[in-house]
């Protein structure tokens, strides 16, 4: 068996690529589901009536006050305890999506509340209905406002996907640990994993910057 890092890397190449693919797909699924859910959470926080707002506020506060690892473990064990066969991958994605939704909800709420009241009043003055006001006046502004924070959350989700290794989802971190347990090159392979996570997050950040530039108002 050859002992240099590059030889070991060549042996492990498929495993690492699979791990990266798994990490990316977990993150994508969680971000997409979490964002869709989060938009509803944010809307409920701003426009919901008393009871709904109270429930959603409790939901976001509890989720945001719980560590992601506890959410992941709870989702995995509780789902099987109540008789839903999810499997580690689905349970992990559900936990991350729930976590993502509470953060996106707060971001959307902040963005909607940051829009000056004059905008709503002006829309009312020119005779737009509530739906029209929302879709063509408030929402475009809120989207621009929440883009940077949303990109931040997306990067956060990629990092949180490492926690799925605890319940046995074979993503990048668990793959790396498997490789290390075979060849004991812990420094090199953890460093490689760190670099790969950095590359993924750097890509997300650049993409966010790109979208921000594209959607910026001409000034």
């Amino acid at each position, binding site marked *: 068996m050859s002992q240099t890092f590059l030889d070991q890397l060549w042996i492990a190449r498929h495993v690492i690529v699979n791990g990266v693919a798994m990490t990316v797909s977990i993150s994508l699924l969680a971000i997409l589901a979490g964002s869709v859910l989060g938009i509803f959470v944010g809307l409920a926080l701003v426009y919901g009536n008393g009871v709904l707002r109270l429930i959603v506020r409790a939901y976001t*506060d*509890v989720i945001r*006050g719980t*560590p992601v*690892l506890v959410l992941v*473990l709870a989702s995995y064990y509780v789902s099987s*305890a109540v008789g839903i066969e999810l499997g580690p991958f689905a349970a992990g994605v559900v936990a991350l999506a729930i976590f993502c939704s509470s953060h996106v909800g707060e971001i959307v709420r902040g963005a909607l509340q940051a829009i000056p009241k004059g905008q709503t009043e002006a829309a009312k003055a020119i005779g737009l209905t509530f739906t029209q006001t929302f879709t063509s006046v408030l929402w475009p502004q809120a989207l621009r406002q929440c883009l940077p924070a949303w990109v931040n959350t997306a990067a956060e989700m990629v990092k949180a996907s490492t926690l799925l290794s605890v319940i046995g989802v074979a993503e990048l971190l668990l793959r790396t640990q498997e490789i290390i347990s075979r060849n004991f090159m812990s420094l090199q392979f953890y460093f490689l994993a760190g670099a790969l996570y950095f590359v993924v997050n750097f890509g997300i950040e650049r993409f966010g910057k790109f979208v921000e530039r594209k959607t910026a108002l001409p000034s």
Partner: protein
Amino acid sequence: MAIGLTSMQIRTSIIAPLMIRNVLPSLSSTIISLFKDTSLAATIAVPELTFASRKINVESFRVIETWIVTSALYVVTCFLIAALMRLVERRLALPR
């Protein structure tokens, strides 16, 4: 400088108090997320709350109760930290 403070005095009695008031809100959110990140120590077998709940979960199979209590403990502690930091913020706020 105009009233004759040395640069060290300027730092300790002018800049530092102003700075602490400014950083307190983001400091408290950092402290809270740091507290939540302590759960990660469970993955390398540090016997803290998450590790203990996992153990209880596996030993007793009272799955739902275990995780509800665990998250309640984390949430309540986060609220306490937040309340404490708000108290500090109010104490340090300038009288108006």
